[in-house]
């Protein structure tokens, strides 16, 4: 079959959102921002009769015609796009002018544009005829998913089911497509109604270990399923999803959740359904006198007695109340209560432990800190500062470097493996949206303090939902109750001065019993 669209060859410039025949030496005019949704049109370009011998579907395209690229051009363009990546390992040398990019100064503009294009490989979906497709390599899972998302966009389908697609990575470019999703409004007696999209993203049963930061910028995201992946941590950005109604993170390798996830339970949030378990969460180890209570609780849990009549607080006569908990206002649907924390881990500039407990990888529980614990930094107080280390300043500059993905190729050959790992980490963190100090809100790359806080995060059970105490529903709620009474949240700080506040210790002899 002939090319689907015999079009002149133009180069799409993602920066200026315009086309140019040849950008070199020319100032590109940027087109005005689009004021309306891209037009849909169909192709009737090849009217020869043999196209009509079989049933034929009209091809639909979204956007203006000049966004579409013929299939054969795509393959030739791709070979160009990949060319810059094959460049040989450069020796480490200073590039004084590499930080500045002038759109008008000519010679190397093309190369930069191609690199940009290859990085945001957000290739507009080009439908291939069967003949050309079989000659090409098999598409990656992510490419297949991009096509699927594009179909959802065309159909206005808000439910993006990417479950069991063998995904190991998911790029920001792929997710960015979803920000343009507009549902097709239903026509009721000739009247169009405008709809806010309610995006649902199902990523269950893949092999994901990290998430693209753009996912947390989808403020219309209402359902997110990450069930059955390989996550060991979730990005802190997940707390930004203020319209999320359902979140499923069960069956991963999560030892803790980001502290920022508490934002999903504030009084302005919408979260209604949360699936946390099973995950190998860090368990707290209380001092011996509380241990007896805990074992009793476990016994009750095992034989399915649940929490009937159990004391709400089991910290003996002393109950600690986090100031954080008081400062915030929580959603009435959720019971969100600080329980305990570990001692603070103080980390050196490069992330090695300087002082503090080990969070080991086996399933052994971690001792909780005393309610009166005051964190003691490894050095004397006088040497402490909130100023970032030079190491952090440099890491930050690396993170903002326009060529971050290729920075490792500029490292000298004899650099320790540590630097390669470090730069790869920086890239993963940047892609997943970065992190802020949970004490002073400063952006950081390398944390200097970290500790785990255990919080009870449990849904307030509606009374009339438990008609019968003997019903299985009742028992299930109780099991969840026990598990969700100790959710480990990882808190990180940007300096050795960013440590937990002192908790208000309340002499509380009265323990609330049900």
């Amino acid at each position, binding site marked *: 079959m002939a090319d689907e669209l015999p079009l002149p060859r133009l180069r799409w410039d993602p920066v200026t959102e315009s086309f140019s025949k040849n950008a070199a030496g020319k100032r590109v005019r940027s087109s005005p921002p689009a004021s309306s949704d891209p037009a849909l049109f169909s192709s009737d370009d090849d009217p020869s009769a043999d196209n009509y011998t079989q049933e034929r579907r009209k091809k639909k395209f979204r956007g203006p015609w000049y966004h579409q690229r013929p299939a054969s051009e795509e393959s030739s363009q791709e070979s160009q796009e990949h060319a810059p990546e094959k460049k040989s390992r450069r020796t480490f040398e200073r590039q004084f002018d590499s930080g500045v990019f002038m759109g008008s100064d000519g010679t190397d503009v093309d190369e930069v544009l191609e690199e940009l294009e290859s990085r945001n490989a957000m290739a507009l979906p080009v439908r291939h005829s069967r003949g050309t497709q079989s000659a090409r390599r098999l598409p990656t899972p992510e490419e297949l998913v991009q096509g699927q998302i594009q179909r959802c966009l065309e159909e206005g389908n808000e439910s993006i089911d990417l479950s069991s697609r063998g995904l190991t990575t998911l790029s920001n470019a792929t997710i960015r497509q979803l920000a343009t999703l507009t549902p097709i409004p239903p026509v009721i007696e000739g009247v169009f109604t405008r709809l806010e999209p309610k995006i649902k993203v199902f990523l269950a049963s893949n092999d994901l270990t990290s998430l693209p930061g753009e996912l947390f910028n989808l403020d219309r995201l209402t359902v997110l399923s990450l069930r059955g992946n390989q996550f060991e941590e979730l990005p802190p950005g997940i707390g930004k999803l203020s319209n999320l109604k359902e979140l499923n993170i069960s069956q991963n390798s999560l030892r803790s959740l980001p502290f920022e996830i508490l934002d999903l339970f504030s009084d302005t949030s919408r979260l209604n359904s949360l699936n946390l378990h099973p995950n190998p969460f860090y368990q707290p180890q209380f001092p011996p006198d509380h241990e007896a209570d805990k074992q009793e609780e476990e016994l009750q849990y095992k034989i399915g007695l649940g929490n009937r009549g159990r004391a709400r607080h089991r910290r003996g006569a002393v109950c600690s109340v986090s100031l954080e908990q008081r400062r915030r206002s929580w959603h009435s649907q959720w019971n969100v209560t600080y329980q305990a924390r570990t001692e603070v881990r103080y980390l050196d500039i490069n992330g090695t432990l300087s002082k503090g407990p080990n969070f080991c990888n086996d399933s052994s529980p971690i001792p909780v800190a005393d309610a009166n614990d005051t964190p003691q930094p490894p050095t004397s107080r006088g040497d402490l500062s909130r100023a970032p280390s*030079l190491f952090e300043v*440099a890491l930050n*500059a690396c993170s903002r470097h326009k060529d971050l993905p290729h920075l490792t190729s500029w490292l000298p050959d004899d650099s320790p493996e540590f630097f390669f790992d470090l730069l790869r980490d920086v890239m993963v963190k940047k892609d997943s949206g970065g992190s802020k100090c949970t004490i002073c809100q400063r952006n950081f790359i390398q944390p200097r303090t970290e500790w785990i806080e255990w919080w009870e995060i449990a849904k307030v059970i509606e009374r009339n939902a438990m008609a019968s105490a003997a019903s299985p529903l009742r028992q299930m709620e109780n099991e969840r109750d026990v598990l969700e009474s100790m959710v480990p949240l990882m808190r990180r700080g940007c300096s050795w001065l960013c440590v937990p506040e002192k908790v208000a210790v309340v002499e509380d002899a009265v323990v609330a019993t049900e």
Partner: protein
Amino acid sequence: MASSSQNQGLSKYVTLVSMDGFEFVVLREAASVSKAIARMLSPTNGFKEAQDGRCVFGEINGVVLEKVAEYFYYNYKNRNREDVPDMEIPPELCLELLMAADYLDT
């Protein structure tokens, strides 16, 4: 740290020398934020650097060492501040500064 070194008659300033021969004279107290420099300059360790207050860095060039010295003052100036401004460094120096920071332990 500074007061103890002054008591022992050590100079208030130290000289940092780059591999290509550039010299930067900085406040001893400010430079001591680098644990590596603090070790070199500590009189108890008996290094030559402690006597003449001169540290030669055979692996750091002048452009990078200048930024290092600038960082020492940035850190010194902001050591007691609650909200510390960001320090900007040119992107093309980021890798060399990263390795210098790792070497200087700062």
